[in-house]
């Protein structure tokens, strides 16, 4: 029996695996559709006049870079779920004598197959939603048919999603190849060191100085842009460094204060692996960053908007930046919500035996569900509030002025963040153990 046949035998759609398989394919579909819509939006800017393109294309590229994190997190969540559904079968094959290379090949074929099915569904989703997306206005007119990407870009996006799935699957299966038993040994995950916080504070201080003296540091426009984008990039990197530490601190505090079973369990679930808890919600942190920095920028640009002396395309800039910020927020939150639903569903399916057993022991599904929800929403709120504060510090004078001169813009952005967090909260009801496990039975 060749590897391809073996991969099909243990990976083909079946009733027992239908829930995780459907979730995985849906996730890949979501990643592909979002990627294509974002690329389509950015591509539509190429139809603007050259001077406007000079402003809009770097902004679109910046938004794309910001969306890489939530997109990668979503793709990785889908890949992990895909790999988990096959863990037992692959482990058995390894015990039966399959080589590590064969196991890796099967995992890669299955991941690629699932991702391809999802990515193609994503293309359909992109085409189905394009008429709606094309109604969004930039430069005072709907995007229109400019949203449709050339075929080669669509093909490249599909290929990228499939490659991401294959890489994640291989990374996730390294343990299986090393040990045929693939026994999950629970070890204490080291608590992230406080040094991370120290490094973060230092870097923010330096960035604050640089960004507030950017005119003195860089003379020409291009250098200024490079310094600003580089500064924000470094800021995001360093804030991701401190994220797990921050989540661990909050988790510890919640553990000390816990009075109810769900609070105690949620705190322990967070502390089980603060880095993983952070990873699940890092997209929320990104959204907060976009909200504060982009929202402040949009508000300030709106101060003198609409003046007759401005060149044609400039009149729309502040409204378009606000549209871009809100779109970036929406997309980031959709990605976070989808990856949270997938990660939580995978976790619920992984723990099916324990949840079922605890229910037999008399623990209600309500307690388990509440603990699971808290274990996600506590890091999400921590990421959102923590990053909002840190981002506001980075652009303090701008953020302060924005609140004073354009409070409605700021309120609109805050409302978008709150709506996004609500979306994340609603999305994880998919993974409700009672619903998922009883449905599975």
């Amino acid at each position, binding site marked *: 029996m060749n590897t391809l046949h073996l991969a099909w035998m243990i990976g083909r759609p079946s009733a027992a695996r239908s829930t995780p398989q459907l979730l995985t394919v849906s996730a890949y579909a979501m990643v592909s559709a979002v990627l294509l819509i974002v690329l389509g939006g950015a591509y539509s800017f190429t139809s603007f006049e050259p001077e406007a393109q000079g402003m809009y294309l770097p902004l679109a590229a910046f938004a794309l870079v910001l969306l890489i994190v939530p997109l990668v997190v979503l793709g990785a969540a889908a890949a992990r779920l895909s790999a988990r559904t096959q863990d037992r079968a692959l482990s058995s094959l390894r015990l039966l004598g399959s080589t590590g290379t064969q196991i890796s090949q099967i995992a890669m074929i299955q991941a690629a197959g699932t991702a391809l099915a999802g990515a193609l569904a994503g293309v359909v989703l992109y085409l189905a939603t394009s008429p709606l997306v094309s109604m969004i206005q930039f430069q005072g007119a709907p995007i229109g048919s400019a949203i449709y990407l050339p075929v080669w870009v669509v093909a490249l996006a599909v290929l990228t999603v499939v490659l991401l799935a294959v890489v994640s699957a291989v990374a996730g299966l390294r343990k299986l190849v090393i040990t045929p038993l693939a026994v999950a*040994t629970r070890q204490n995950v080291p608590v992230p060191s406080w040094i991370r916080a120290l490094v973060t504070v230092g870097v923010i201080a330096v960035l604050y100085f640089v960004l507030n003296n950017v005119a003195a540091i860089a003379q020409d426009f291009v250098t200024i842009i490079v310094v600003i984008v580089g500064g924000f990039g470094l800021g995001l990197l360093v804030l991701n460094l401190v994220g797990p530490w921050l989540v661990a601190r909050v988790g510890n505090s919640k553990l000390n204060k816990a009075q109810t079973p769900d609070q105690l369990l949620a705190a322990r679930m967070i502390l089980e692996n603060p880095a993983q808890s952070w990873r699940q919600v890092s997209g929320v942190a990104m959204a907060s960053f976009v909200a504060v920095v982009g929202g402040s920028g949009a508000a300030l640009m709106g101060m003198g908007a609409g003046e007759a002396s401005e060149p044609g395309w400039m009149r729309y800039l502040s409204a378009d930046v606000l549209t871009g910020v809100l779109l970036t927020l929406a997309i980031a939150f959709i990605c976070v919500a989808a990856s949270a639903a997938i990660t939580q569903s995978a976790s619920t399916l992984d723990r099916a035996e324990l949840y079922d057993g605890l*229910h*037999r022991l008399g623990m209600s599904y309500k307690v388990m569900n509440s603990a699971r929800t808290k274990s996600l929403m506590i890091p999400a709120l921590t990421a959102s509030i923590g990053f909002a504060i840190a981002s506001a510090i980075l652009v303090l004078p701008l953020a302060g002025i924005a609140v004073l001169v354009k409070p409605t813009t700021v309120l609109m952005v805050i409302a978008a963040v709150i709506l996004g967090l609500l979306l994340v909260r609603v999305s994880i009801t998919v993974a409700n153990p009672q619903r998922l496990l009883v449905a599975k039975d």
Partner: protein
Amino acid sequence: MLENSLGLPPVIAAHGLFRSFGTTVALGGVDLNIQLGQSLAIMGPSGSGKSTLLHALAGIELPDAGRITLNLPGYNNVQVETLNDKARTKLRREAFGFVFQSGLLIPELTAIENVAMALMINGVQRAAAMDRAAQALAQLGLAGMEQRRIGQLSGGQQQRVAIARAKVTGAGVVFADEPTGALDSTTGTEVLDILLEATVGAGKSLVMVTHDRSVAERCDRIVTLRDGHIVTDSATAQRQTGSWS
């Protein structure tokens, strides 16, 4: 209803329990009384209906037909089969304790938190729950291991934590499904000693499913099932006081 020598009704009285899965009959009309302070072993080959009977008696699964009457503090003359899922969940956490082969301990929690959790879901404040959990663990020889994670305990220690969790709520009946099944013989004997001491030794009842005759012999009474029917029901050598049914 049959009463024991003290004139008390059985803590659990099952009558005419019937349960089938498709065309397979798991319980074919089982009658069984369990007395206060009694240890009962349920034996039988695989597929004989042992676990189904235990699940029915504990209100985990409902029988297709038959009655299960409960007489425990706070649950006087309660018909288990008439309770809805929510009420049976409450019953299980308040009136029963469970020790399963796999332990079913929450891996993220420490030993003491696993035990305290049983009290906290019954509404006991965390501080009080932790105190009582510490005492329960100490009584079972786990003093000093309270803060260990489940993965840091041996199989025998994990089962002791499970027994502490079953005992700490003061449950009137403890249900055990192959509690020593995953342990070596020496550790299994130790765990069984502790389980009997924590239940029958404290005046509670124990209902245990086991494949192991030597484990069953440690109980007061052995019921043997075959194809969903009780084929033998007798007192063990250590409790030759006649039939209990």
